[in-house]
């Protein structure tokens, strides 16, 4: 029981991390929480959860077809777990898709606004309908243990046509998931890009899906100390291996037909990845299962099944994410919130699975878990010492998992706090001073972040036109102490962000430590706060007095970003001057950014 307890503890922790990541995504949006880009818009959620998740859930319709359509009664015992796995696979897929689309609250649009030319339209409808069918098939498992057990029987009686519908829907949308990639033939790497993708997708999905059922059944038996029926599981595994072999044959035909063996063996990382993927997805599982070893040893069967499961997930990640890297000229790697969302969704599905098998008849009649001696089922001691996280207290499941949940939620908030609490992580680039084109510093090249957008600023011309040496303060509006006509970049030190130009600790020390507070915070009747504190110019009149006006709130504490400061100062003056000097285009972008042919973007 200890390993089950530990696994559940880890799943609870991951689920809570995922929950915080999901909240962060819903509050701050995709840009702030994911590493998706316009070049690589398909990330971990769409491929790792959605495309791979439904592939793992195929056992539902495959077993349903075997039991209900072909009347193979010996697989009856696996029907309920298979349907539950399908329900969880499709449920987590739908939820991931909800998070992955830019405007999650429009997830229902596919139902109302039909775009019949889109593969995604077909995928959306099939996944939606098939998810409803798995829900219909799973519901009786729960209902039969409640007072609605009669309803469960009625649902069971009329289930046959619905199961048939489910089988056809699944077949349809697995092929159309593959078809999605046919619309970008130039972007998917040539090893994976073939017109046969739809067929490859459904054969590998059903093959690996059956092995998912085998793996989960073996894990159930291991965790709950039961003996697995290796005979039946072996037959299921064999069916999976046959489908994977068909996949291998079609893929082999495709490789030979398109003559891409040289590409695979060329030493490109895609080729090595493809070989690795094929070993996991085909060679290990098919080898172990067809050699007959799997029926003798549960461990070997688990290795074969686990290899196929990892292989199919890797295959989907290869096709959906990695194969785009070379053509996009960019690399995508998931952000922390993305990784924890994926893990969290799978963990929540795992916890739901444990809940179902322990409380309802999925594999066996509950209770499937012998009660542990040290484990009280419910808190007996009402007023007992639950005030601490002490050892004995946490033996109780509710106490233990709630403690894990609280601690991991708090840690997750700490981990994601930059994205969760501050919104999009802002760009922050340090400003470089302008460079002079001539000895007299008559023309200055202003390019704070040294990118390809710059302004050749004619300092001499501006000085002459605005009134010679008397005009300095029109732009140089502040002097730093012991400096005259301080340059822009000395205060506006960041390209995109406001920066603090008031050093509190410095002033505090300079003015005499703790006794100095009252020198600026003169109003002792209220808390020391910015709005009842001396303004900078009250002490620094010689530096700041020149441009100060009574209503001016600026020149205190925060300097705007370099971009904002320059645009505001230059464009503001250009708008004023364009009528005076009769140059109507003076406020256009290209007046200063001569090389950038932009229309007025303001």
């Amino acid at each position: 029981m200890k390993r089950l307890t530990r696994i559940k503890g880890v799943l609870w922790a991951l689920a809570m991390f995922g929950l915080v990541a999901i909240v962060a995504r819903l509050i701050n949006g995709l840009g702030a929480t994911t590493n998706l880009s316009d070049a690589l818009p398909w990330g971990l959620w769409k491929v790792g959860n959605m495309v791979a998740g439904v592939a793992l859930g195929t056992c539902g319709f495959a077993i349903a077809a075997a039991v209900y359509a072909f009347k193979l009664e010996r697989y009856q015992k696996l029907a309920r777990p298979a349907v539950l796995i399908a329900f969880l696979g499709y449920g987590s897929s739908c939820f991931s898709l909800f998070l992955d689309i830019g405007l999650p609250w429009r997830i229902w649009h596919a139902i109302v606004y039909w775009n019949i030319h889109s593969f995604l339209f077909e995928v959306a409808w099939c996944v939606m309908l098939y998810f409803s069918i798995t829900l219909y098939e799973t519901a009786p498992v729960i209902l039969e243990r409640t007072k609605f057990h009669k309803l469960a029987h009625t649902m069971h009686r009329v289930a046959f046509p619905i199961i048939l519908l489910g089988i056809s829907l699944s077949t349809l949308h697995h092929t159309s998931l593959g078809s999605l990639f046919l619309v970008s033939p130039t972007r998917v790497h040539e090893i994976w890009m073939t017109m046969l993708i739809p067929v490859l997708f459904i054969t590998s999905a059903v093959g690996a899906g059956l092995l998912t059922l085998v793996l989960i059944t073996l894990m159930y038996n291991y965790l709950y100390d039961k003996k697995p029926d290796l005979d039946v599981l072996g037959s299921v595994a064999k069916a999976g291996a046959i489908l994977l072999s068909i996949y291998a044959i079609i893929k082999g035909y495709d490789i030979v037909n398109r003559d891409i063996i040289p590409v695979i063996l060329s030493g490109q990382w895609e080729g090595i990845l493809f070989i690795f993927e094929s070993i996991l997805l085909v060679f290990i599982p098919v080898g172990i299962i067809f050699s007959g070893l799997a029926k003798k040893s549960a461990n070997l069967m688990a290795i074969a099944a686990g290899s196929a499961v990892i292989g199919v997930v890797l295959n989907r990640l290869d096709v959906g994410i990695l194969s785009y890297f070379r053509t996009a000229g960019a690399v995508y790697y998931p952000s922390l919130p993305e990784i924890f969302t994926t893990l969290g969704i799978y963990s929540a599905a795992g916890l739901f699975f444990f809940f179902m098998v322990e409380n309802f008849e999925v594999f066996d009649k509950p209770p499937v878990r012998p009660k542990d001696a040290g484990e009280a089922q419910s808190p007996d001691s009402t007023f007992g010492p639950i005030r601490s996280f002490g050892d004995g207290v946490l033996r109780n499941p509710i106490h233990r998992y709630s403690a894990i949940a609280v601690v991991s939620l708090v840690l997750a908030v700490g981990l994601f706090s930059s994205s969760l609490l501050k919104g999009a992580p802002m760009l922050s680039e340090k400003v470089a001073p302008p460079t002079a084109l001539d000895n007299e510093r008559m023309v200055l090249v202003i390019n704070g972040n040294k990118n390809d957008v710059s302004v050749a600023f004619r300092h001499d011309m501006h000085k002459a036109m605005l009134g010679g040496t008397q005009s300095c303060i029109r732009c140089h509006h502040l002097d730093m102490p012991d400096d005259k006509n301080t340059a822009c970049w000395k205060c506006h030190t960041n390209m995109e962000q406001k920066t603090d130009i008031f050093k509190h600790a410095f002033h505090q020390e300079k003015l005499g430590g703790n006794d100095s507070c009252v020198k600026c915070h003169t109003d002792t009747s209220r808390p020391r706060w910015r709005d009842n504190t001396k303004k900078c110019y009250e002490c620094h009149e010689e530096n700041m007095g020149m441009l100060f006006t009574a209503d001016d709130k600026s020149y205190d504490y925060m300097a705007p970003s370099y971009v904002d400061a320059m645009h505001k100062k230059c464009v503001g003056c250009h708008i004023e001057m364009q009528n005076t000097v009769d140059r109507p285009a003076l406020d256009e972008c290209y007046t200063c950014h001569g090389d950038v042919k932009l229309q007025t973007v303001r």
Partner: protein
Amino acid sequence: MLTDWLGFARGPLFIMCFLFMLLGLLRLVVLELIGFKNAYAKIEDKDFLIFSPPEQTGDIRDKKFISKTWLAGIMEWLIPVRHIYKSKPFFSIVSIIFHIAIIVTPIFLMQHILLWKRGVGVGWPGLPGHLADVLTVVALASIIILFLYRLTDKDARVLSGTGDYLLLALIFVIFGTGLLAAHPAMSPVNYSLTMLIHVLAGNLSFVLLPLSKLAHVVLFPFNRVSSDFFWRLPPGMGDKVAHELHGEEAKV
């Protein structure tokens, strides 16, 4: 350097500690309610001998009866005028003043309210600065008196563990540094350091709230119901309790 640490302590660290307190206390209440429900199920089980028969003490299975007695108990202890003990009235009164001071001061301090307003946009009326100072000094004085009381009084000393002294010391540090931070001219140490200690000690108290006996801030209603209500033993019950606990050979 010091200001960076201060920024971290009252930024991310504060958020984590405060959230831990909220979730931790919520967890304790939920668990206590679950425990209460289970105990209630046992009351309905007639074999649960410790409870007196209905005809002697009123029907314990009557839900109205339970909530009425419970609520009365909570209210009685929330305004503990009737419970100023005759044996130690001075310390009872000091304890009540201590509770009022340490609850009212941090919640209604203008400086704290301004931070809430800046951080989450919610503010509420606060105390005038002088009153807050007085309350802080009262809190500090009452902590010293209660600390000495725990050390000197025979009964209190037996009941006190290390944790009780440390928690009092922690609250003393929070209020002491708070007072010094509000009046830097009085402070022997650097303002930023005072503030850092204040914030760190405050954060520590948030973490300790659900983990220590400080949890009584949310659990006191349940503590009340256990003593005032569940343990109403009819005459002759002592023997039965002893029998339950020690078996046949018990001698009371």
